């Protein structure tokens, strides 16, 4: 059989481990809690995970190409805030046009981040932290408190369910397939890995490092805008602070999924698994009535544990390579 892609082989093991972990937690919880294994909860859980999975895909592009995007949370917030104004209409068509405008805005935010980082040489951390602060301020200016309204029919269409399959899952699947094609099957995708590992060498081998770097942020902005739309449609209102936890969670999902914070390594399937693991753990903790505060502690701890595990396994692999040479 022909090999489909190349990246698929590499960290397959890591991704399988995460999926196994995911299923183990799932099965244990099914035995443990009757409310967890209810059909309603499981379909709900799947839908709940979609927004995080979506923004985490974008974050993975940025981290793979050697950067970090701290502005995705605020991008989500401002998108819901604007959605509550633009989609506050009775015509589904207008709502559709409004949502397209929001996606374009997400792309524009990514473009600004990317240009700042790649042309003005401001470090990613600073650029995206600043744009994050600006965007959250703008979001609060547009919509001081949660409110507004989203077109009912549009929102219902976006969250349509057919037993276990639902519209958000289909949207996630489409985005995953598109992004997967970009990352593994185009030359720009290889470019992300190249500039993430070593910008200098990538440049000397002829990669257009600036353009590639900018596209990664554009993708992150686009994915964040989709997440913003999904959240707005779920809540049916806008909320100028709802995106806050997504910055940290998207980074955690990527890292759990095997993306290296130092760039050049990462898979989208791992990120999706990471996002579902985080989503499921919050669902489980809500189910077990764990206080919200402990959930924060656990999420932070999860990121640290994941980083430690990958750092150790990376060291072992390096030693093995050195020995075999």
């Amino acid at each position, binding site marked *: 059989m*022909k*090999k489909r*892609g*190349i990246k698929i*082989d*590499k960290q397959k093991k890591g991704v399988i481990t995460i999926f196994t972990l995911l299923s183990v937690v799932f099965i244990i919880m099914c035995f443990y809690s009757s409310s967890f294994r209810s059909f309603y909860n499981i379909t709900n859980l799947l839908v709940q995970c979609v927004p995080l999975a979506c923004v985490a895909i974008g974050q993975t592009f940025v981290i793979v190409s050697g950067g970090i995007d701290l502005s995705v949370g605020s991008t989500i917030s401002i998108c819901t805030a604007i959605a509550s104004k633009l989609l506050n209409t009775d015509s589904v068509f207008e709502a559709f046009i409004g949502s397209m405008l929001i996606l374009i805005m997400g792309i524009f935010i990514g473009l600004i981040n990317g240009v700042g980082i790649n042309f003005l040489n401001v470090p990613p951390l600073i650029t995206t932290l600043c744009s994050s602060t600006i965007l959250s301020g703008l979001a609060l200016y547009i919509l001081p408190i949660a409110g507004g309204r989203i077109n009912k029919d549009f929102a219902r269409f976006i969250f349509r369910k057919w037993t276990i399959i639902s519209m958000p899952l289909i949207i996630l699947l489409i985005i995953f397939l598109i992004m997967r*094609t970009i990352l593994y*099957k*185009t*030359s720009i*995708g*290889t*470019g992300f*890995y*190249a500039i*993430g*590992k*070593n910008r200098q*060498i*990538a*440049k*000397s*081998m*002829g*990669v*257009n490092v600036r353009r590639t770097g900018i596209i990664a942020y554009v993708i992150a902005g686009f994915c964040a805008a989709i997440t913003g739309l999904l959240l707005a449609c779920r809540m049916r209102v806008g909320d100028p602070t709802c995106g806050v936890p997504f910055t940290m969670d998207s980074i955690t999902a990527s890292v759990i999924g095997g993306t290296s914070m130092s760039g*050049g*390594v990462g898979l989208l399937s791992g990120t999706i698994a990471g996002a579902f693991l985080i989503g499921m753990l919050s669902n489980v903790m809500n189910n077990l009535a764990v206080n919200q505060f402990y959930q924060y502690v656990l999420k932070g701890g999860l990121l640290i544990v994941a980083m430690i595990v990958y750092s150790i396994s990376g060291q072992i692999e390096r030693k093995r*390579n050195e020995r*075999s*040479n």
Partner: protein
Amino acid sequence: MSSDCLKMIGISKRFPGVQALDDVDFTLKRGEIHALVGENGAGKSTLMNILGGNVKADAGYMELNGKILDISCPIESLNKGIGFVHQESNLLENLTVLENIFLAREETKLGILNHQTMRDKIVEFQSIYGYQIDPDRYVSSLSIVEKQSVEIIRALICDPQILILDEPTAALDSNETERLFSILSQLQNKGVAIIYISHRIEEIFKISQRITVLKDGKVVGVRKTNCVDKDEIISMMVGRVLEDIYPNRKNHLIGKPVLSLRNVSIHKHIHEVSFDLHEGEILGLGGLEGHGQRELLRAIFGDIAFSGGSLFGCGNSYDKVGMRKRIHSGIGYVTHDRRGDGLFLNETVQKNIAIASLHLRNRLGFIDTNQEKKKVLEKIEQMSIKITDINQSITDLSGGNQQKVMLARWLLINPYVLLIDEPTKGVDVGARMSVYQIIDQLTKEGIGILLFTSDMMELIGLSDRILVFYEGKISGELKRGEATEEKIMRAASGIRE
């Protein structure tokens, strides 16, 4: 018989502080192997980097097949048929062999990568030239030899007219070298012109048809290989007389051993090396760059680990002692990369001088600033470092004064051994003399100095004894008086006497 396919005319390039190339002409004929030789820093790599699109020339022009060649980036050079195999591995370890070979010029169908076509091309290419590397392996899992093969495949896969090889055999054993030569002659028969940079004179005589010798950024001469002998090439490369800028050390007394190395190895760099450094001695580590000397200095300092052997200083073993303790015991290291890992560029002169010896002025966790100022001023006076104020920014100082600041820093720890890597890099002649005088003065106080410099003249001028390194081993030991540039060059090129 064959015409010039490449002409580089009047190429000049200036880097801060150095004229790397000065009006260099270089021509290449179709189907020839043209060797480019010269000492470190002679300008070979700069010249090739201009051709390869990594560096832009200040003056001069290039012609390829009679047409003006204008190259602004590496991929352009590759697309115009110039393949470049770099000296150091220039591959991305997180990508596969296939991705590295085709990076930035992938085969695509409607924007989607066509892995099968690329894989077929590589397999076909490998079967012609006898390589066997799985295109889907990750570069991080390849050996050095395999990595180099990947670089060669990358350079050759789109049928270049010109192939540049920068020290291609540095990491190869004799079998691999033979195979490379047979590939080169195959290419030569196909009409590919090859520029071959190497320090191994014997190889050059084996495969090249012409030799261009560069020295200090200028062309010394172009010779047909069969009309010239090795000694002539070496004297063209070196050909200088010792000037009187070095201290007179003929009557200098050398004491007992202070630092002893016994069978030390460093993974991939040094193999089982033993020697002693004596009190008041300047021991020069000679040879070409990249043969383990720099790593040896860093390992003695404790920055990288020895993979075997032992290090003794004044009778004590240093095997389980880290860098901090080594500094406290009196080992100082003056780095070659002053701006990179030497100076704190955003700090003052005082802070830069004081930083290594803070432990000596520690009073219950607080620094005795009065004493610090006194000590720093003392050293500044002693070494006549030109400053306007002790709190002046270090970046305002000239290269020579910065170098003195680095020396002053390590003298404040009261060293008994000083490791100096390139004592006068980017330092003008006047300041060089005073750096040499300082070094001479230090040895009179009994400090042992281990010196590495790629400047041959400096090595001979300063050292009481020279150990020449070749591929991580000592290939020659020369005393003051018997060391000549020719002898060192021979030992450094691996030519056995």
